[in-house]
Protein backbone atom coordinates (compact mmCIF):
# COMPACT_ATOMS: atom_id res chain seq x y z
CA UNK A 1 0.00 0.00 0.00
CA UNK A 2 1.37 3.39 -0.92
CA UNK A 3 0.78 6.92 0.18
CA UNK A 4 1.10 9.49 -2.59
CA UNK A 5 1.58 12.95 -1.17
CA UNK A 6 1.48 15.71 -3.73
CA UNK A 7 2.03 19.40 -3.14
CA UNK A 8 0.18 21.26 -5.89
CA UNK A 9 -1.14 24.65 -6.93
CA UNK A 10 -4.36 25.32 -5.00
CA UNK A 11 -6.43 26.10 -8.09
CA UNK A 12 -5.56 22.73 -9.64
CA UNK A 13 -7.29 20.83 -6.87
CA UNK A 14 -10.71 20.75 -8.45
CA UNK A 15 -9.44 19.40 -11.76
CA UNK A 16 -7.31 16.80 -9.99
CA UNK A 17 -10.01 15.42 -7.78
CA UNK A 18 -12.51 15.23 -10.63
CA UNK A 19 -9.98 13.27 -12.68
CA UNK A 20 -9.20 10.98 -9.77
CA UNK A 21 -12.85 10.19 -9.21
CA UNK A 22 -13.32 9.40 -12.87
CA UNK A 23 -10.49 6.91 -12.66
CA UNK A 24 -11.95 5.25 -9.59
CA UNK A 25 -9.98 6.76 -6.75
CA UNK A 26 -12.66 7.23 -4.14
CA UNK A 27 -10.79 8.79 -1.27
CA UNK A 28 -8.35 11.56 -0.57
CA UNK A 29 -7.32 14.02 2.09
CA UNK A 30 -6.41 17.64 1.50
CA UNK A 31 -4.69 20.19 3.67
CA UNK A 32 -3.49 23.74 3.28
CA UNK A 33 0.27 24.13 3.44
CA UNK A 34 2.87 26.68 2.52
CA UNK A 35 6.25 25.94 1.07
CA UNK A 36 8.93 26.74 -1.37
CA UNK A 37 11.14 24.87 -3.78
CA UNK A 38 12.35 26.48 -6.98
CA UNK A 39 9.43 28.82 -6.68
CA UNK A 40 9.82 31.42 -3.99
CA UNK A 41 7.20 33.82 -2.63
CA UNK A 42 6.99 37.53 -3.22
CA UNK A 43 7.89 40.78 -1.53
CA UNK A 44 5.27 42.60 0.49
CA UNK A 45 5.38 46.21 1.64
CA UNK A 46 3.76 47.39 4.83
CA UNK A 47 3.81 51.04 5.77
CA UNK A 48 7.01 51.67 3.86
CA UNK A 49 8.98 48.61 4.95
CA UNK A 50 9.53 45.66 2.68
CA UNK A 51 9.59 42.07 3.75
CA UNK A 52 9.85 38.79 1.94
CA UNK A 53 7.20 36.17 2.07
CA UNK A 54 9.19 33.22 0.81
CA UNK A 55 6.39 30.77 1.32
CA UNK A 56 3.86 30.11 -1.39
CA UNK A 57 0.37 28.82 -0.54
CA UNK A 58 -0.01 25.24 -1.76
CA UNK A 59 -2.37 22.36 -1.26
CA UNK A 60 -1.22 18.95 -0.09
CA UNK A 61 -3.22 16.05 -1.46
CA UNK A 62 -2.76 12.65 0.17
CA UNK A 63 -3.94 9.53 -1.61
CA UNK A 64 -3.51 6.11 -0.10
CA UNK A 65 -3.88 3.33 -2.63
CA UNK A 66 -2.85 -0.19 -3.43
CA UNK A 67 0.70 -0.36 -4.72
CA UNK A 68 -0.39 -1.40 -8.18
CA UNK A 69 -2.60 1.64 -8.54
CA UNK A 70 0.22 3.95 -7.68
CA UNK A 71 1.34 4.50 -11.27
CA UNK A 72 -2.13 5.43 -12.41
CA UNK A 73 -2.56 7.94 -9.63
CA UNK A 74 0.77 9.54 -10.40
CA UNK A 75 0.00 9.89 -14.06
CA UNK A 76 -3.34 11.50 -13.28
CA UNK A 77 -1.56 14.00 -11.06
CA UNK A 78 1.04 14.70 -13.72
CA UNK A 79 -1.64 15.21 -16.36
CA UNK A 80 -3.81 17.56 -14.43
CA UNK A 81 -1.33 19.56 -12.36
CA UNK A 82 1.46 20.20 -14.81
CA UNK A 83 1.63 23.62 -16.43
CA UNK A 84 5.35 23.54 -17.17
CA UNK A 85 5.92 26.66 -15.10
CA UNK A 86 7.95 26.77 -11.93
CA UNK A 87 5.65 26.11 -8.98
CA UNK A 88 3.89 23.02 -10.32
CA UNK A 89 4.85 21.10 -7.19
CA UNK A 90 6.15 17.73 -6.14
CA UNK A 91 4.99 14.20 -5.50
CA UNK A 92 6.38 12.09 -2.66
CA UNK A 93 5.67 8.38 -2.49
CA UNK A 94 6.02 6.31 0.65
CA UNK A 95 4.94 2.97 2.00
CA UNK A 96 1.97 2.43 4.26
CA UNK A 97 1.96 -0.63 6.49
CA UNK A 98 -1.76 -0.89 6.86
CA UNK A 99 -5.06 0.95 6.61
CA UNK A 100 -8.18 0.49 8.71
CA UNK A 101 -11.73 1.71 8.12
CA UNK A 102 -12.97 2.93 11.48
CA UNK A 103 -16.64 2.34 10.74
CA UNK A 104 -16.29 -1.36 9.99
CA UNK A 105 -12.87 -2.31 11.26
CA UNK A 106 -11.91 -3.65 7.83
CA UNK A 107 -8.16 -3.54 7.25
CA UNK A 108 -5.77 -3.66 4.30
CA UNK A 109 -6.99 -3.09 0.76
CA UNK A 110 -10.57 -3.58 1.86
CA UNK A 111 -10.25 -0.45 3.90
CA UNK A 112 -9.47 1.83 0.99
Amino acid at each position, binding site marked *: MKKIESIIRP*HKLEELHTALQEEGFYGLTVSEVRGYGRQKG*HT*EIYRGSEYN*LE*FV*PKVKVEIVCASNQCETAISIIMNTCRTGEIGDGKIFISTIDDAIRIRTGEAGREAL
Partner: protein
Amino acid sequence: MENQITTEITNNLFTINNLWMMIATALVFIMHLGFATLETGLTQSKNTLNILFKNSIIPAIGLLTYAIIGFSLMYPGESFAGGVFGFAGFGIGTDAAGLTSSYNIGYTYWTDFLFQGMFAATAATIVSGAVAERIKLSSFLIFATIFVALAYPITGMWKWGGGFLDTLGFYDFAGSTLVHSVGGWGALTGVLFLGPRAGKFVKGKIHPIPGHSIPLAVIGVFLLWLGWFGFNGGSVLSADPGLVSLVFVTTSLAASAGAIGAMATSWTFLKNPDLTMTLNGILAGLVGITAGADLMSPADAIAIGFIAGVIVVFSVIFFDKVKLDDPVGALSVHLVCGIFGTLAVGIWGEKAGLDQLWHQFIGVISVAAFIVPFTAIIWFILKKSIGLRVSAEEEYSGLDIGEHSMEAYPEFEKVS
Protein backbone atom coordinates in the same frame (compact mmCIF):
# COMPACT_ATOMS: atom_id res chain seq x y z
CA MET B 1 -39.67 95.37 15.98
CA GLU B 2 -42.13 93.13 14.26
CA ASN B 3 -39.76 92.95 11.36
CA GLN B 4 -36.98 91.81 13.60
CA ILE B 5 -39.19 89.15 15.13
CA THR B 6 -40.14 87.84 11.74
CA THR B 7 -36.49 87.73 10.76
CA GLU B 8 -35.59 85.82 13.87
CA ILE B 9 -38.37 83.35 13.30
CA THR B 10 -37.17 82.83 9.76
CA ASN B 11 -33.61 82.49 11.00
CA ASN B 12 -34.67 79.82 13.45
CA LEU B 13 -36.40 77.89 10.71
CA PHE B 14 -33.32 78.29 8.53
CA THR B 15 -31.14 76.99 11.36
CA ILE B 16 -33.37 73.96 11.87
CA ASN B 17 -33.58 73.16 8.19
CA ASN B 18 -29.86 73.55 7.73
CA LEU B 19 -29.19 71.36 10.76
CA TRP B 20 -31.23 68.57 9.25
CA MET B 21 -29.49 68.96 5.90
CA MET B 22 -26.08 68.72 7.58
CA ILE B 23 -27.10 65.61 9.46
CA ALA B 24 -28.48 64.17 6.24
CA THR B 25 -25.08 64.88 4.71
CA ALA B 26 -23.37 62.91 7.47
CA LEU B 27 -25.83 60.07 6.91
CA VAL B 28 -25.12 59.99 3.18
CA PHE B 29 -21.42 60.00 4.04
CA ILE B 30 -21.79 56.82 6.07
CA MET B 31 -23.28 55.11 3.00
CA HIS B 32 -19.74 55.02 1.67
CA LEU B 33 -18.75 52.79 4.55
CA GLY B 34 -21.85 50.77 3.83
CA PHE B 35 -20.83 50.26 0.20
CA ALA B 36 -17.28 49.46 1.29
CA THR B 37 -18.24 46.71 3.70
CA LEU B 38 -21.00 45.32 1.46
CA GLU B 39 -18.70 44.98 -1.54
CA THR B 40 -15.93 43.55 0.60
CA GLY B 41 -18.21 40.99 2.18
CA LEU B 42 -19.52 39.77 -1.17
CA THR B 43 -16.10 39.25 -2.74
CA GLN B 44 -13.07 37.08 -2.04
CA SER B 45 -10.59 37.81 0.73
CA LYS B 46 -7.69 38.01 -1.68
CA ASN B 47 -9.21 41.17 -3.22
CA THR B 48 -10.38 42.77 0.00
CA LEU B 49 -7.70 45.37 0.42
CA ASN B 50 -8.06 46.43 -3.20
CA ILE B 51 -11.81 46.93 -2.87
CA LEU B 52 -11.42 48.83 0.36
CA PHE B 53 -8.77 51.00 -1.23
CA LYS B 54 -11.15 52.03 -3.97
CA ASN B 55 -13.99 52.67 -1.58
CA SER B 56 -11.76 54.68 0.75
CA ILE B 57 -10.44 56.93 -1.98
CA ILE B 58 -13.72 57.47 -3.84
CA PRO B 59 -15.21 59.91 -1.32
CA ALA B 60 -11.97 61.91 -1.55
CA ILE B 61 -12.03 61.94 -5.33
CA GLY B 62 -15.74 62.65 -5.34
CA LEU B 63 -15.64 65.62 -2.99
CA LEU B 64 -12.54 67.19 -4.51
CA THR B 65 -13.72 66.96 -8.11
CA TYR B 66 -17.15 68.15 -7.05
CA ALA B 67 -15.51 71.17 -5.44
CA ILE B 68 -13.41 71.89 -8.50
CA ILE B 69 -15.92 71.30 -11.25
CA GLY B 70 -18.89 69.08 -10.46
CA PHE B 71 -20.98 71.44 -8.37
CA SER B 72 -20.69 74.15 -11.03
CA LEU B 73 -21.69 71.73 -13.75
CA MET B 74 -24.67 70.36 -11.93
CA TYR B 75 -26.06 73.60 -10.56
CA PRO B 76 -24.82 76.25 -12.99
CA GLY B 77 -27.53 78.68 -11.89
CA GLU B 78 -27.37 82.13 -13.50
CA SER B 79 -24.80 81.23 -16.11
CA PHE B 80 -26.97 78.31 -17.14
CA ALA B 81 -27.57 78.23 -20.87
CA GLY B 82 -29.78 75.71 -22.63
CA GLY B 83 -31.26 72.54 -21.17
CA VAL B 84 -28.41 70.11 -21.66
CA PHE B 85 -25.26 71.76 -20.42
CA GLY B 86 -24.16 74.62 -18.23
CA PHE B 87 -21.09 75.55 -16.27
CA ALA B 88 -20.58 78.23 -13.63
CA GLY B 89 -16.80 78.15 -13.48
CA PHE B 90 -14.18 76.28 -11.47
CA GLY B 91 -14.11 76.04 -7.71
CA ILE B 92 -16.56 76.80 -4.95
CA GLY B 93 -17.09 79.80 -2.72
CA THR B 94 -19.78 82.14 -1.51
CA ASP B 95 -20.41 85.63 -0.20
CA ALA B 96 -22.14 86.26 3.12
CA ALA B 97 -25.56 85.86 1.51
CA GLY B 98 -24.80 82.20 0.88
CA LEU B 99 -24.92 81.67 4.62
CA THR B 100 -28.40 83.09 5.13
CA SER B 101 -31.91 82.10 4.23
CA SER B 102 -31.71 84.40 1.23
CA TYR B 103 -29.60 81.66 -0.43
CA ASN B 104 -32.24 79.09 0.34
CA ILE B 105 -34.57 78.62 3.28
CA GLY B 106 -33.39 75.01 3.61
CA TYR B 107 -29.62 75.26 3.81
CA THR B 108 -26.50 77.35 3.41
CA TYR B 109 -24.31 77.34 0.34
CA TRP B 110 -21.78 75.12 2.13
CA THR B 111 -24.37 72.58 3.18
CA ASP B 112 -25.71 72.56 -0.35
CA PHE B 113 -22.28 71.79 -1.75
CA LEU B 114 -21.44 69.06 0.73
CA PHE B 115 -24.80 67.30 0.57
CA GLN B 116 -24.65 67.21 -3.22
CA GLY B 117 -20.97 66.23 -3.17
CA MET B 118 -21.68 63.20 -1.00
CA PHE B 119 -24.32 62.11 -3.52
CA ALA B 120 -21.89 62.48 -6.40
CA ALA B 121 -19.38 60.09 -4.89
CA THR B 122 -21.98 57.34 -4.46
CA ALA B 123 -22.43 57.07 -8.21
CA ALA B 124 -18.80 55.97 -8.63
CA THR B 125 -19.03 53.55 -5.74
CA ILE B 126 -21.84 51.70 -7.48
CA VAL B 127 -19.52 50.94 -10.39
CA SER B 128 -16.76 49.78 -8.08
CA GLY B 129 -18.77 46.79 -6.87
CA ALA B 130 -19.69 45.51 -10.32
CA VAL B 131 -16.17 45.60 -11.73
CA ALA B 132 -14.50 44.25 -8.59
CA GLU B 133 -11.91 41.45 -8.47
CA ARG B 134 -10.44 42.02 -11.91
CA ILE B 135 -10.08 45.70 -12.79
CA LYS B 136 -6.73 47.48 -12.69
CA LEU B 137 -6.52 49.99 -9.88
CA SER B 138 -5.16 52.84 -12.00
CA SER B 139 -7.79 52.38 -14.71
CA PHE B 140 -10.56 52.36 -12.18
CA LEU B 141 -9.32 55.50 -10.49
CA ILE B 142 -9.16 57.35 -13.80
CA PHE B 143 -12.62 56.15 -14.75
CA ALA B 144 -14.07 57.11 -11.36
CA THR B 145 -12.57 60.58 -11.53
CA ILE B 146 -14.00 61.34 -14.97
CA PHE B 147 -17.29 59.73 -14.08
CA VAL B 148 -17.98 61.85 -10.98
CA ALA B 149 -16.38 64.97 -12.39
CA LEU B 150 -18.34 64.97 -15.65
CA ALA B 151 -20.89 62.26 -16.30
CA TYR B 152 -22.78 62.44 -13.01
CA PRO B 153 -23.14 66.25 -12.79
CA ILE B 154 -24.08 66.65 -16.45
CA THR B 155 -27.04 64.27 -16.31
CA GLY B 156 -27.83 65.49 -12.79
CA MET B 157 -28.27 68.99 -14.17
CA TRP B 158 -30.90 67.82 -16.64
CA LYS B 159 -33.31 67.41 -13.76
CA TRP B 160 -32.02 68.84 -10.48
CA GLY B 161 -30.12 71.70 -12.08
CA GLY B 162 -33.24 72.77 -13.96
CA GLY B 163 -32.40 71.23 -17.32
CA PHE B 164 -34.64 69.80 -20.03
CA LEU B 165 -35.89 66.80 -18.07
CA ASP B 166 -37.10 69.12 -15.35
CA THR B 167 -38.93 71.25 -17.90
CA LEU B 168 -40.45 68.12 -19.37
CA GLY B 169 -42.04 67.03 -16.08
CA PHE B 170 -39.77 64.11 -15.37
CA TYR B 171 -39.77 63.33 -11.64
CA ASP B 172 -36.91 61.83 -9.66
CA PHE B 173 -37.17 62.73 -6.03
CA ALA B 174 -33.83 61.48 -4.68
CA GLY B 175 -32.19 59.82 -7.63
CA SER B 176 -33.46 56.40 -8.69
CA THR B 177 -32.32 57.48 -12.11
CA LEU B 178 -29.94 60.37 -11.52
CA VAL B 179 -27.82 58.50 -9.00
CA HIS B 180 -28.59 54.80 -9.11
CA SER B 181 -29.21 54.22 -12.81
CA VAL B 182 -26.35 56.53 -13.70
CA GLY B 183 -24.06 54.38 -11.56
CA GLY B 184 -25.75 51.28 -12.91
CA TRP B 185 -25.23 52.14 -16.59
CA GLY B 186 -21.57 52.88 -15.89
CA ALA B 187 -21.36 49.52 -14.16
CA LEU B 188 -23.00 47.77 -17.11
CA THR B 189 -20.58 49.10 -19.69
CA GLY B 190 -17.73 48.31 -17.31
CA VAL B 191 -18.83 44.71 -16.94
CA LEU B 192 -19.19 44.40 -20.71
CA PHE B 193 -15.71 45.73 -21.42
CA LEU B 194 -14.06 43.74 -18.64
CA GLY B 195 -15.66 40.37 -19.04
CA PRO B 196 -16.33 37.94 -16.21
CA ARG B 197 -13.93 36.90 -13.48
CA ALA B 198 -11.79 33.88 -14.28
CA GLY B 199 -13.63 30.76 -13.19
CA LYS B 200 -17.08 32.30 -13.02
CA PHE B 201 -18.38 30.76 -16.23
CA VAL B 202 -16.67 27.53 -17.18
CA LYS B 203 -17.86 25.49 -20.14
CA GLY B 204 -21.20 27.26 -20.12
CA LYS B 205 -21.81 26.53 -16.46
CA ILE B 206 -22.10 29.10 -13.67
CA HIS B 207 -19.57 28.58 -10.89
CA PRO B 208 -20.53 30.71 -7.91
CA ILE B 209 -17.68 32.59 -6.26
CA PRO B 210 -19.06 33.15 -2.77
CA GLY B 211 -18.27 36.34 -0.90
CA HIS B 212 -15.87 35.80 1.96
CA SER B 213 -17.66 37.48 4.87
CA ILE B 214 -21.39 37.69 5.33
CA PRO B 215 -21.08 39.77 8.54
CA LEU B 216 -19.36 42.51 6.55
CA ALA B 217 -22.14 42.37 3.95
CA VAL B 218 -24.81 42.71 6.62
CA ILE B 219 -23.01 45.63 8.26
CA GLY B 220 -22.95 47.25 4.84
CA VAL B 221 -26.65 46.88 4.17
CA PHE B 222 -27.69 48.20 7.56
CA LEU B 223 -25.41 51.21 7.16
CA LEU B 224 -26.88 51.81 3.71
CA TRP B 225 -30.42 51.72 5.08
CA LEU B 226 -29.34 54.14 7.81
CA GLY B 227 -27.72 56.40 5.25
CA TRP B 228 -30.87 56.31 3.13
CA PHE B 229 -32.69 58.25 5.83
CA GLY B 230 -30.34 61.06 4.86
CA PHE B 231 -30.36 60.27 1.15
CA ASN B 232 -34.14 60.35 0.81
CA GLY B 233 -34.98 62.40 3.90
CA GLY B 234 -32.43 65.03 2.97
CA SER B 235 -33.81 65.25 -0.55
CA VAL B 236 -36.80 67.10 0.91
CA LEU B 237 -34.21 69.90 1.15
CA SER B 238 -35.66 71.12 4.45
CA ALA B 239 -36.77 69.67 7.77
CA ASP B 240 -40.45 69.96 6.82
CA PRO B 241 -42.01 67.70 9.46
CA GLY B 242 -44.78 66.17 7.40
CA LEU B 243 -42.77 65.52 4.29
CA VAL B 244 -39.55 64.26 5.87
CA SER B 245 -41.38 61.94 8.22
CA LEU B 246 -43.48 60.57 5.36
CA VAL B 247 -40.28 59.94 3.43
CA PHE B 248 -38.80 58.13 6.44
CA VAL B 249 -41.87 55.90 6.56
CA THR B 250 -42.07 55.12 2.85
CA THR B 251 -38.32 54.48 2.75
CA SER B 252 -38.43 52.06 5.69
CA LEU B 253 -41.52 50.25 4.53
CA ALA B 254 -40.12 49.81 1.03
CA ALA B 255 -36.88 48.41 2.48
CA SER B 256 -38.87 46.05 4.70
CA ALA B 257 -41.09 44.89 1.88
CA GLY B 258 -38.03 44.45 -0.32
CA ALA B 259 -36.52 42.14 2.28
CA ILE B 260 -39.70 40.08 2.49
CA GLY B 261 -40.09 40.01 -1.29
CA ALA B 262 -36.57 38.76 -1.87
CA MET B 263 -36.75 36.26 0.99
CA ALA B 264 -40.04 34.87 -0.25
CA THR B 265 -38.81 34.65 -3.82
CA SER B 266 -35.54 32.96 -2.98
CA TRP B 267 -37.23 30.59 -0.56
CA THR B 268 -39.95 29.65 -3.03
CA PHE B 269 -38.07 29.54 -6.30
CA LEU B 270 -34.53 28.76 -5.20
CA LYS B 271 -35.62 26.56 -2.28
CA ASN B 272 -33.24 28.47 -0.06
CA PRO B 273 -33.73 31.41 2.28
CA ASP B 274 -30.75 33.22 0.77
CA LEU B 275 -29.37 35.99 2.96
CA THR B 276 -27.40 37.69 0.21
CA MET B 277 -30.59 37.89 -1.85
CA THR B 278 -32.53 39.22 1.13
CA LEU B 279 -29.87 41.88 1.63
CA ASN B 280 -30.11 42.79 -2.05
CA GLY B 281 -33.88 42.88 -1.53
CA ILE B 282 -33.54 45.54 1.15
CA LEU B 283 -31.40 47.62 -1.17
CA ALA B 284 -33.78 46.97 -4.07
CA GLY B 285 -36.66 48.32 -2.00
CA LEU B 286 -34.61 51.38 -1.09
CA VAL B 287 -33.57 52.10 -4.66
CA GLY B 288 -37.10 51.45 -5.87
CA ILE B 289 -38.75 53.96 -3.53
CA THR B 290 -36.11 56.64 -4.10
CA ALA B 291 -37.69 58.28 -7.15
CA GLY B 292 -41.03 58.82 -5.48
CA ALA B 293 -40.45 58.56 -1.74
CA ASP B 294 -42.40 61.77 -1.14
CA LEU B 295 -45.35 60.81 -3.32
CA MET B 296 -46.33 57.41 -2.00
CA SER B 297 -48.72 56.15 0.65
CA PRO B 298 -47.52 53.39 2.99
CA ALA B 299 -49.37 50.83 0.88
CA ASP B 300 -47.75 52.14 -2.31
CA ALA B 301 -44.34 51.98 -0.67
CA ILE B 302 -44.92 48.40 0.41
CA ALA B 303 -46.03 47.44 -3.10
CA ILE B 304 -43.03 49.09 -4.75
CA GLY B 305 -40.59 47.62 -2.22
CA PHE B 306 -42.01 44.13 -2.47
CA ILE B 307 -41.94 44.08 -6.26
CA ALA B 308 -38.40 45.46 -6.28
CA GLY B 309 -37.44 42.64 -3.89
CA VAL B 310 -38.90 40.05 -6.24
CA ILE B 311 -37.33 41.65 -9.30
CA VAL B 312 -33.87 41.76 -7.80
CA VAL B 313 -33.71 38.00 -7.28
CA PHE B 314 -34.69 37.18 -10.84
CA SER B 315 -32.43 39.92 -12.11
CA VAL B 316 -29.40 38.48 -10.34
CA ILE B 317 -30.15 35.11 -11.89
CA PHE B 318 -30.74 36.70 -15.27
CA PHE B 319 -27.39 38.49 -15.34
CA ASP B 320 -25.69 35.23 -14.40
CA LYS B 321 -27.55 33.51 -17.24
CA VAL B 322 -26.45 36.06 -19.80
CA LYS B 323 -22.92 35.77 -18.41
CA LEU B 324 -22.58 39.30 -17.15
CA ASP B 325 -20.49 38.87 -14.03
CA ASP B 326 -21.42 41.32 -11.28
CA PRO B 327 -19.98 40.08 -7.97
CA VAL B 328 -22.18 42.20 -5.69
CA GLY B 329 -25.42 42.49 -7.63
CA ALA B 330 -24.97 46.18 -8.41
CA LEU B 331 -26.63 45.92 -11.83
CA SER B 332 -29.72 44.31 -10.36
CA VAL B 333 -29.99 46.65 -7.40
CA HIS B 334 -29.03 49.99 -8.88
CA LEU B 335 -29.74 49.73 -12.59
CA VAL B 336 -32.76 47.45 -12.78
CA CYS B 337 -34.44 48.66 -9.61
CA GLY B 338 -33.41 52.23 -10.39
CA ILE B 339 -35.34 52.00 -13.65
CA PHE B 340 -38.24 50.26 -11.94
CA GLY B 341 -38.37 52.91 -9.23
CA THR B 342 -38.36 55.69 -11.78
CA LEU B 343 -41.23 54.15 -13.71
CA ALA B 344 -43.09 53.46 -10.45
CA VAL B 345 -43.70 57.20 -10.11
CA GLY B 346 -45.99 56.88 -13.12
CA ILE B 347 -47.78 53.84 -11.70
CA TRP B 348 -48.26 54.49 -7.97
CA GLY B 349 -48.73 57.56 -5.80
CA GLU B 350 -49.75 61.16 -6.29
CA LYS B 351 -48.39 61.61 -9.78
CA ALA B 352 -49.46 58.25 -11.20
CA GLY B 353 -50.73 58.43 -14.77
CA LEU B 354 -49.84 57.59 -18.33
CA ASP B 355 -48.39 61.02 -19.04
CA GLN B 356 -46.10 60.83 -16.06
CA LEU B 357 -45.12 57.28 -16.95
CA TRP B 358 -44.09 58.53 -20.36
CA HIS B 359 -42.02 61.35 -18.86
CA GLN B 360 -40.38 58.86 -16.55
CA PHE B 361 -39.60 56.67 -19.50
CA ILE B 362 -38.05 59.58 -21.40
CA GLY B 363 -35.91 60.32 -18.37
CA VAL B 364 -34.65 56.76 -18.16
CA ILE B 365 -33.88 56.66 -21.87
CA SER B 366 -32.21 60.07 -21.99
CA VAL B 367 -29.84 59.22 -19.18
CA ALA B 368 -28.99 55.87 -20.74
CA ALA B 369 -28.44 57.53 -24.10
CA PHE B 370 -25.77 59.72 -22.57
CA ILE B 371 -24.15 57.53 -19.91
CA VAL B 372 -23.81 54.34 -21.93
CA PRO B 373 -21.79 55.81 -24.84
CA PHE B 374 -19.92 58.21 -22.56
CA THR B 375 -18.70 55.49 -20.21
CA ALA B 376 -18.15 53.06 -23.07
CA ILE B 377 -15.75 55.54 -24.63
CA ILE B 378 -13.82 55.94 -21.37
CA TRP B 379 -13.60 52.19 -20.89
CA PHE B 380 -12.56 51.76 -24.49
CA ILE B 381 -9.78 54.33 -24.32
CA LEU B 382 -8.53 52.88 -21.05
CA LYS B 383 -8.55 49.40 -22.52
CA LYS B 384 -6.56 50.46 -25.53
CA SER B 385 -4.09 52.57 -23.54
CA ILE B 386 -3.11 51.34 -20.08
CA GLY B 387 -5.39 48.30 -20.11
CA LEU B 388 -8.47 47.53 -18.07
CA ARG B 389 -7.83 44.18 -16.58
CA VAL B 390 -5.14 42.73 -14.36
CA SER B 391 -3.16 39.75 -15.64
CA ALA B 392 -4.59 36.26 -15.24
CA GLU B 393 -1.76 35.46 -12.84
CA GLU B 394 -2.59 38.52 -10.71
CA GLU B 395 -6.28 37.75 -10.76
CA TYR B 396 -5.55 34.23 -9.54
CA SER B 397 -3.28 35.28 -6.69
CA GLY B 398 -5.40 38.28 -5.81
CA LEU B 399 -5.38 42.02 -6.47
CA ASP B 400 -4.24 42.76 -2.93
CA ILE B 401 -0.81 41.36 -3.61
CA GLY B 402 -0.86 42.30 -7.27
CA GLU B 403 -1.86 45.95 -6.98
CA HIS B 404 -0.77 46.75 -3.43
CA SER B 405 1.85 44.20 -2.36
CA MET B 406 -0.19 43.87 0.81
CA GLU B 407 -2.85 41.62 2.20
CA ALA B 408 -6.08 42.37 4.00
CA TYR B 409 -5.69 39.46 6.40
CA PRO B 410 -1.96 38.81 6.41
CA GLU B 411 -2.10 36.34 9.28
CA PHE B 412 -4.04 33.80 7.26
CA GLU B 413 -1.27 33.81 4.73
CA LYS B 414 1.81 33.98 6.89
CA VAL B 415 3.00 31.05 8.95
CA SER B 416 4.69 32.35 12.06
